[in-house]
């Protein structure tokens, strides 16, 4: 079955180009445009990978991961962060959240695709009980 990728970003052009590219690779793609929708869609759709913009409406990407990680079935889900902010703060926050990857915009789509492929097939850490 196709791996399900949830992308949250308020840039419609980025969502359009990424979803077309990922669907061409055989992924099932869901797109949302703010942090609130990201949490709701993650709860409903149970994706295999999250691609989160860091700065978006209704909360940042890290707050999405914090909330999604509390959902039992999504604990340990690989998260790929996208941002245009090259700062120590963002890098440290991504490390603290055990992000699968932090990718700075603008990026080469092929680079993101290879990270997504790796994230989709990465073994999930066993959730602590």
């Amino acid at each position, binding site marked *: 079955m196709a791996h399900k990728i949830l992308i949250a970003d308020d840039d419609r*052009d980025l*969502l*359009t*180009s*990424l*979803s*077309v*590219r990922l*669907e061409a690779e055989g992924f099932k793609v869901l797109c949302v445009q703010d942090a609130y929708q990201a949490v709701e869609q993650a709860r409903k759709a149970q994706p295999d990978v999250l691609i989160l913009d860091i700065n978006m409406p209704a909360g940042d990407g890290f707050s999405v991961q914090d909330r999604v990680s509390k959902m039992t079935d999504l604990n340990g889900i690989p998260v790929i962060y996208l941002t245009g902010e090259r700062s120590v703060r963002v890098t440290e926050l991504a490390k603290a959240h055990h992000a699968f990857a932090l990718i700075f915009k603008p990026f080469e789509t092929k680079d993101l695709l290879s990270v997504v492929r790796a994230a989709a097939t990465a073994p999930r850490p066993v959730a602590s009980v």
Partner: protein
Amino acid sequence: MYTDTNKSILIVDNEPSVLAALSARLGGMGYRCTTADCSAQALSQFSSCKTDLVISDLNMPEGDGAVLAQAIRRISGVPIIIISGFKNAYRKNLSNIANVSFLHKPFETKSLLQLVSASLAPPGSQGDTTVRAA
């Protein structure tokens, strides 16, 4: 789904990643794709190359998709698909022009492919015939 590799598609968007993704996907389906990053370039290409379908963004810095669609419609009846996040602008400026469809960004690829197929299908085929050029 109707796919005719003799069909040429002009894709217009000021965002290079959208142009690249759409031309790769539609080109991979066998369509012949050309791209333009603004209305002026699109009109120039439309005038000089055979085009069976135009897919255009609406909001572009150098002449928007509505102006482009109206200019094309004055000289040709080819189907036009507007791709945009702004449906109200489409309704206001383009919904009365014949043979113009709208696809809301972001969209599922299958929605785009179905619309492309339906737009290019010969009348009466309902877009469900597969035709492959030799």
